[in-house]
């Protein structure tokens, strides 16, 4: 019964989205003015209804209602409540419902609070948003209904995909989704502004919190995903250039570029067409990511909910939205009036250079990700990996880091390098000093450059704070400094990991001691153990850091049996200055156990740096939101006073 309520709510929400699209679209023409008042309330009710549908699904999972196919397929009555709930979105249908729910709520929120844009642009934006939602509603209702019933009712459910039964992974996909959906709002803004040709600071200011919010979630999602792959896949690497990873990296790169260009548009009224284009590209990349992951068109280590027919559906949506938006861009971009001019040596100039470099990196990643597909079409099987991605992306990322150090020091509109030269002497000296030291110690080229730039950038990123009083600092500035500093921290972690990691692959008998870096590691024993849905060989390992306290670790070689799949559960010991990483391998020739050991100095800084970047974005967003809020409150006060005086 409850399930039918959810389905009904979903149908009504879809109908309202259609109404929102029609009313919003018609009110753009002269004849449709009567419908203007309808758009905002409809958006709000639509958001409420789709939220009801999602709550119903959560309820069904929490009580394990097995008369619902989705619950029976993905849940089990004996699971902890947290995994029952995460089971609601740990599958294709549920995750799509989560997607439209976040989208509906975002639209409702937008309809409720956003008042600074010209009303026509706002209506066009809400219509565009309804158009995007409508496609996903159709996808849900016709191709992946989460409320399909099951008759007869089974005795118990099948359980959740074991790799998803991990606290990190229960929240990793929804985090990325919220990021993707945030970009869909930015996309709607871009389409709305193209329709009415009103692109300016007000538009950028309205769009900015959404872009920032989406970017924060994407950053956090990527950091979490990278750490998960690091400890779960047991290869000791933190980024594999896997298609699924690239699928989350590409929207992030586009969103990063968008974030910076939207700031230029908001404060300087420049880069109008460029911002619009990036708004379209950023959402295209998130749709593309969803498509690549869901269609199974590329082979990946974490294929999830793979189904070619669903892939076809997403592809059609992709074609309609992105094709439509790009066609609109072709028609309208030439008629959007040019923004303010600026000199090449200026804050804007630096941001443009960075945006171009970010876009180029995006292009490199996109080409590398799609190339296997192209090759397959031509009849060859290839796999593109780090030997392509690492040097190719470094070509663009390294100069980008230099611009990142200099850009924030430049003034808007027009500046002179002579002025900032003095400021940059110290970071430059540090960069050169570290570089020379690294060269003497015989480091390889890429880690060397990374290490040297990390130190210089860390210093340079703090320079915008110079000469400012702490009390008067605005949150967006603090956020920027923090995010840029985070880049330096993560870069240092990457360079240190690449340069200083010591790795040992040994065959050990129980009782043997192995040295790796400053660690002594002793293999005590290996025993078979069984879990709820896996069996494993588990080693007991005693590790000491420089003869210090003994730490016991338990790496496992685990095999799941439904579906049959082997995973290695690495064991980690984290210190402030790095991580010991132990993996149990196969039996060696003479019956000894293979142990893979890594000592990875400062590797954790990669993720701490990533979190600093996300935190910086969060602070910037809060800063902008709070000043928006103050303005809204002030305007309301003025309106209230006027109303009283008028009476």
């Amino acid at each position: 019964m409850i399930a039918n309520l959810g389905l009904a709510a979903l149908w009504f929400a879809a109908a309202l989205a259609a109404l929102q699209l029609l009313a919003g679209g018609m009110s753009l023409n002269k004849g449709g003015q009567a419908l203007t008042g309808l758009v905002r309330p409809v958006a709000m009710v639509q958001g409420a209804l789709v939220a009801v549908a999602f709550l119903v699904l959560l309820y069904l999972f929490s009580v394990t209602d097995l008369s619902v196919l989705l619950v029976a397929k993905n849940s089990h009555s004996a699971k902890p409540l947290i995994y029952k709930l995460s089971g609601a979105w740990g599958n294709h249908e549920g995750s799509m419902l989560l997607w439209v729910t976040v989208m509906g709520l975002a639209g409702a929120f937008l309809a409720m609070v956003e008042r600074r844009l010209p009303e026509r642009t706002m209506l066009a934006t809400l219509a565009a948003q309804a158009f995007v939602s409508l496609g996903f509603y159709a996808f849900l209702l016709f191709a992946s209904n989460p409320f399909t019933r099951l008759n007869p009712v089974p005795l118990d459910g099948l359980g959740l995909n074991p790799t998803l039964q991990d606290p990190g992974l229960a929240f990793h996909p929804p985090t990325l989704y919220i990021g993707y959906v945030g970009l869909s709002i930015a996309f709607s803004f871009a389409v709305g502004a193209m329709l009415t040709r009103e692109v300016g600071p007000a538009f950028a200011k309205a769009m900015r919190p959404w872009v920032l919010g989406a970017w924060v979630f994407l950053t956090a999602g990527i950091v979490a995903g990278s750490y998960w792959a690091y400890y779960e896949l047991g290869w000791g690497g933190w980024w594999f250039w896997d298609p699924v990873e690239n699928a989350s990296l590409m929207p992030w790169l586009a969103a990063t570029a968008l974030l910076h260009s939207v700031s230029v548009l908001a404060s300087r009224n420049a880069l109008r067409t460029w911002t619009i284009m990036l708004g379209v590209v950023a959402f295209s990349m998130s749709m593309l990511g969803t498509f690549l992951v869901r269609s199974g068109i590329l082979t990946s280590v974490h294929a999830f909910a793979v189904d070619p027919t669903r892939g076809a559906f997403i592809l059609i949506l992709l074609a309609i939205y992105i094709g439509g938006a790009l066609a609109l861009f072709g028609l309208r971009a030439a008629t959007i009036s040019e923004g303010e001019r600026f000199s090449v040596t200026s804050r804007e100039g630096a941001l443009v250079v960075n945006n171009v470099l970010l876009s180029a990196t995006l292009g490199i990643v996109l080409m590398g990700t799609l190339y296997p597909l192209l090759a397959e079409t031509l009849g060859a099987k290839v796999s593109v990996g780090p030997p392509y991605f690492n040097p190719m992306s470094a070509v663009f990322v390294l100069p980008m880091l230099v611009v990142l150090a200099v850009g924030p020091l430049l003034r808007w509109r027009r500046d002179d390098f002579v002025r900032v030269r003095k400021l940059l002497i110290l970071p430059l000296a540090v960069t050169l000093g570290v570089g020379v030291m690294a060269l003497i110690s015989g480091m390889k080229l890429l880690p060397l450059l990374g290490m040297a730039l990390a130190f210089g950038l860390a210093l340079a990123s703090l320079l915008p704070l110079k000469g400012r009083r702490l009390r008067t600092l605005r949150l967006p500035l603090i956020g920027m400094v923090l995010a840029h500093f985070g880049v330096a921290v993560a870069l240092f972690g990457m360079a240190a990991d690449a340069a200083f990691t010591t790795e040992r692959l040994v065959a050990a008998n129980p009782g043997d001691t192995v040295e790796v870096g400053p660690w002594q590691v002793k293999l005590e024993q290996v025993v078979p153990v069984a879990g709820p849905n896996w069996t494993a060989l588990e080693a007991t390992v005693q590790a000491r850091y420089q003869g210090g306290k003994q730490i016991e670790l338990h790496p496992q070689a685990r095999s799941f049996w439904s579906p049959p799949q082997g995973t290695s559960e690495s064991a980690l010991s984290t210190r402030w200055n790095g991580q010991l990483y132990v993996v149990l391998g196969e039996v060696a020739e003479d019956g000894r156990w293979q142990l893979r050991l890594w000592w990875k100095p400062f590797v954790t800084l990669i993720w701490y740096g990533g979190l600093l970047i996300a935190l910086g974005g969060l602070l910037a967003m809060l800063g902008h939101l709070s000043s928006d809020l103050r303005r809204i409150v002030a305007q309301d006060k003025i309106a209230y006073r006027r109303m009283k005086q008028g009476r």
Partner: protein
Amino acid sequence: MSEPAPTRASPWLLWLPLLAFAAFLALVAYGLRNPAPREVRSALIGKPVPEFNLPPALDGQPGLARADLADGKVKLVNIFASWCVPCAVEAPQLAALKAAGVNLVGVAIRDKPADLKIFLDRNGNPFSRIAADNVSAIQFQLGSSGVPESFVVDGRGVIRYQHIGEIRADQVPLILAEIERAAR
């Protein structure tokens, strides 16, 4: 530095993104129609074991040929390897099956005699004979995708049941039931 000259993208340049996108769509639409195969399922259940003749895995023991499987007795053919971790985990279950009177035949995939000996010393040897398949030949013939895998073969040499992955303790009764069914 001078102000840059006003640059206005020429109109056809604005259509370039759409063009690139169209090319992408064409590529992907083609790729979607030819999905890569993911899982191998034996299509041989209910069919006789294909002709094969494998050498012994350990010196001084008999090898394994198709004729050995069609000797009137039901057998459990276990495909394993000393380098395979789940195979070691499976060993107690195989021992239990042997204790229950099951005739087990092993096929060691891409293995070395020395490794195999250590594996059997450590985990026990439940097999009546072990064949060596160093090129995964029988694996392809049986349509199996990995190790371990087990096949129930009846007395006429017909494959009756395929078990993918290791046999777990709670699945021993299931395997026994399949063997009984094949004996009927």
